[in-house]
Structure formats: structure tokens, C-alpha cells
């Protein structure tokens, strides 16, 4: 691993991020990444965060048109409430703060505590929970669906809504709408190695893959003999569509888990598009790349977000962050 010691990985990365992105203000000690021009008067602020190791999520999505601030936790570990409260205080213009929370026990508990504390400080807080991963059965017998790729859609579309001057409850309801319209499914071709553990978190032999993985190096729902890109697309897109049952067009995120070359990811996208065409789903926009990652894990995930014209306009609205950037 390209690190000094496991203990300083997050702090080192934040120092490097600060040096690379002058438009961000990075508080390395307190682990808060804030857009330098925050608070923006009259604008609802968006704060997200989660364990590190998913870069560019979330810090790479801080900037005009998307997040106001991000709180990186330790690798694969939810940040602590102190970070979120500090971030909320730094970005609140008085128009309120939306917490975007991926559905993991740790993230939910810590953001809940932070919301209470921030409200004690007079900050108006709303929350959107992201839970898009169809590999997890959403039942009383699980912690509920994980938040994965849809986080990017919620952050982008709610961010555009905030940029358009919409009030907190409207931004919140758009966030919820986007989450409700999104589903994901992920596949791992290798296990992940965390700095703390130093070796793969589980044993995945060459020639096998895990179906239905999350973004924390946990094993998936099922192990199988290696499948082709075509077969994986059939399986993953099929799982997403069977659950989402979209009637309108979708935005597709064909996401790399970190260790899969872009060359392969583009090839996989060709198969994803094929399945969508076969299933009669029209694709309004496609994003291919490593956006919601799991350190060095090889693999990919597919997220589809069903959109109407309003959501599509929010997607096309300008964004200027380290990792997502378009429009003027």
C-alpha cells in the first residue's frame, strides 16, 4: 500500500486534498472538508460524510452544485457527530442544513446524534437516508438496504435544487424522491485490503466472484464461478430493474469499485447499455467511472435513477467539484 502508517492514512489524504484543491477548505485536524465560499447566503447547505475509502465520495463532491461540506471518517468507519456538527456550523447560512446519510447503523446513529446537537445550536437540520442496494433484503431481519451508488445522485440532484434556491423542505423531499427512484447492485472480483488489516478482508480465489457486495469489503450475498462482463451486466442490471421497474428514462451510473481499469469499465458499460435496450429502458444520461469506491477492490456496480424532466434538469445543472464537473 502507498501509505505511511495505517493510523495517518485519512489525515495524510486530507493534507494532499487540501494541496490539490484550493477551492476547498480542509480542516485536517477536525476532518471537515468545506467549500471555501461557504456559507452561501440564502442557500440550503448539504452535508454528507461516511467512512473513508470510497473516494471521490464524499470530499470529491464538495463544491458549487453539490455538497457544501463532507465529513470523512476513518477507513470504512462512520465519522463522529463532532465532525458533522462542525461542518453544519461552517456551512449553514441560516437556510438550514440537509444531512445526506447512507444507511449503515454507524452512519445513522452518528448523524442522528449530530442532528440533535446541531439543533441544540440553533441549526435547522433535515435528513435524507440513502438505501439503494437491492442486494440486501429490506426486512426486519437486516439493518435495511445499504446506501451505495445512489448517494451520488442524491448529492448531485439535491445539490442542484439547493443551488436553485429551493427551501430546505423542498431540497429534502427531492433528496428522498431521488433515493426512492434509485437502485444499485454491486459485484466484486477481488476482496479489498484495508490499511488497518493490511491484507484482503476476505478470501476470494482467482476465478470466482462475489455477487451483491457493498462498499465496505464485506463479502456479498453469493459466490460464483467467474462470469463474463456480459453475464455480470445481465445479472446486475436485471436485479436493479426487477426491483425498480422504471417506466420513464433513467440515468445510469456504471461505477468502478476502485481496482477495475477504466478500459474494462467502459466495456462493461457497453453490456449495461445492451441489457437496458433489451429491456426497453431508455437511458437519458450515463456516467462511467470510479465514483463510489471500495479502496482497491476490483469490481463494479450499476445504479439506475429513474428521472422525469425536472430531475434531469437538476442533473444537467452546473456542478464544480473535484470529481464531478460540468456546465458553467
Amino acid at each position, binding site marked *: 500500500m502507498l501509505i505511511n502508517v495505517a493510523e495517518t492514512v485519512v489525515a495524510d489524504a486530507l493534507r494532499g486534498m487540501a494541496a490539490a484543491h484550493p477551492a476547498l477548505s480542509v480542516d485536517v485536524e477536525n476532518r471537515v472538508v468545506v467549500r471555501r465560499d461557504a456559507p452561501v447566503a440564502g442557500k440550503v447547505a448539504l452535508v454528507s460524510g461516511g467512512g473513508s475509502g470510497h473516494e471521490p465520495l464524499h470530499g470529491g463532491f464538495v463544491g458549487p452544485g453539490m455538497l457544501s461540506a463532507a465529513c470523512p471518517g476513518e*477507513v470504512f468507519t*462512520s465519522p463522529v457527530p463532532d465532525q458533522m456538527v462542525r461542518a453544519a456550523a461552517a456551512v449553514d447560512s441560516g437556510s438550514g442544513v440537509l444531512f445526506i446519510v447512507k444507511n449503515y447503523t454507524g452512519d445513522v446513529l452518528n448523524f442522528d446524534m449530530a442532528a440533535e446537537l446541531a439543533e441544540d445550536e440553533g441549526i435547522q437540520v433535515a435528513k435524507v437516508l440513502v438505501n439503494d442496494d437491492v442486494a440486501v433484503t429490506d426486512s426486519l431481519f437486516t*439493518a435495511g438496504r445499504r446506501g451505495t451508488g445512489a448517494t451520488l445522485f442524491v448529492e448531485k440532484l439535491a445539490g442542484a435544487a439547493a443551488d436553485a434556491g429551493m427551501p430546505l423542505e423542498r431540497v429534502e423531499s427531492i433528496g428522498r424522491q431521488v433515493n426512492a427512484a434509485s437502485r444499485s447492485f454491486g459485484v466484486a472480483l477481488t476482496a479489498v485490503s484495508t490499511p488497518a488489516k493490511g491484507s484482503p478482508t476476505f478470501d476470494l480465489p482467482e476465478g470466482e466472484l462475489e455477487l451483491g457486495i457493498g462498499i465496505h469489503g464485506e463479502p456479498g450475498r453469493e459466490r460464483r464461478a467467474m462470469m463474463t462482463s456480459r453475464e455480470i451486466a445481465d445479472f446486475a442490471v436485471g436485479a436493479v430493474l426487477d426491483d425498480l421497474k422504471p417506466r420513464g428514462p433513467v440515468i445510469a451510473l456504471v461505477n468502478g469499485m476502485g481496482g477495475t481499469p477504466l478500459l474494462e469499465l467502459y466495456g462493461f458499460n457497453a453490456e449495461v447499455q445492451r441489457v437496458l435496450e433489451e429491456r426497453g429502458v431508455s437511458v437519458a444520461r450515463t456516467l462511467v467511472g470510479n465514483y463510489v469506491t471500495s479502496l482497491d477492490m476490483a469490481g463494479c456496480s450499476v445504479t439506475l435513477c429513474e428521472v422525469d424532466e425536472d430531475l434531469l434538469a437538476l442533473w444537467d445543472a452546473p456542478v464544480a467539484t473535484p470529481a464531478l464537473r460540468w456546465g458553467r
Partner: protein
Amino acid sequence: MAEQEPGTGLDAAFFTRWLTACAAAVEREAAHLTDLDAAIGDADHGSNLQRGFRAVADALGKDEPATPGAVLTLAGRQLISTVGGASGPLYGTLLRRTGKALGDAPAVGRAELAEALGQGVAAVAQLGGAKAGDKTMLDALEPAVTGLGQSYADAARAAADAAEATTPLQARKGRASYLGERSIGHQDPGATSAALLIGVLAETAEAGR
């Protein structure tokens, strides 16, 4: 059977010794806890608690809170502010609520501690929405409270047995629940660390006699 022990013998220094010994035990067991978490979670439980209990030991080395309640609430706050993940708020809440329940008594007895810990454990159940049998830290904490009504040793034994008994269970809370049936056959890391902390409690009490 309850052992012989000083009625209200547990003062602030005792709780500081316990939590400092917990920090040492967590250092020792961190890799094991992380390995358990790698199997059915995300391979960070050991380093999470390591970070948290280092902060606890640090804080208790600087401040010297005057009462058991103050020691526990300070420690709980440290865990919440430094651990993150699921275990940070849960263990943090456990210690804070237990501390709160002890009020500002300068020293407490085993029975009072058992009662207070019961309230802490109830708060954990409420916060995380888990119940015994869901393959979480609660599986070890609830029997620990009952055991503590008898003796420290009973508490330690009950927690250790309960932690082991999580192995055949299918997880219904936390990350391990994502695995469905594949979570069966692995001991829960949080139940294991809970048993560790309770075991250290018994050792601290034993050493203090």
C-alpha cells in the same frame, strides 16, 4: 452466589482503573476483533475500539473525575467523539447512561452498578433497535447485567459464554445482517468486545480486593 465484597467499594479510581485496563486489553485484542469483523463486517472493530479507548485512557489520565458517574460519562463522551461506526455511539451510550444512572455518588456497590448497567444496556437496545439473539453486543451485555447481580465472575462468565453463543446465529442487525445466512458460523465482534470489557471489569474487581 454473591461473593463477599465491600458494600460501596467502587469509587472513581476503581472505574478509572477498569477503563484504563480496558484500553490495554483492547490493544491486545484489536487484531483479533478486527479479524472477526473482517469475516462478517468491515474489518475495523478492533481499530475502532483501539482509537476510542486510547482517547478514554488519555482523558482519564488528564482529568480526574471525582465520581464513578463522572468517569463513565466522560469515557462515554470520548467514545462517541472518537470511535464512529456503529460501536462508537453504542458503547458511548452504554457508558454515558450507566454513568448518568449512578448519579453523583462518590462510590457505588456491585448491585447498584448492575442496576445502572442495566439502564445503559437498555439504552443501547433502544438506540440500535436490536434485541438479544440478533447477534450483536447486546447478546453479551444482557447476560452480563444479570450475572453482575450475582457476582463479577458470573458476569464475566455469562458474557463470555454469550459471546461464543453468537457463532451459530444469523445476524439481524448491523453489517453482518447483509450477509444473510453467510453470517452463520462466525462469532460477533461486538459481542466479543463486550465480553472482553466485562471480563476486565471482573479482573479489576478481583485485583482490588
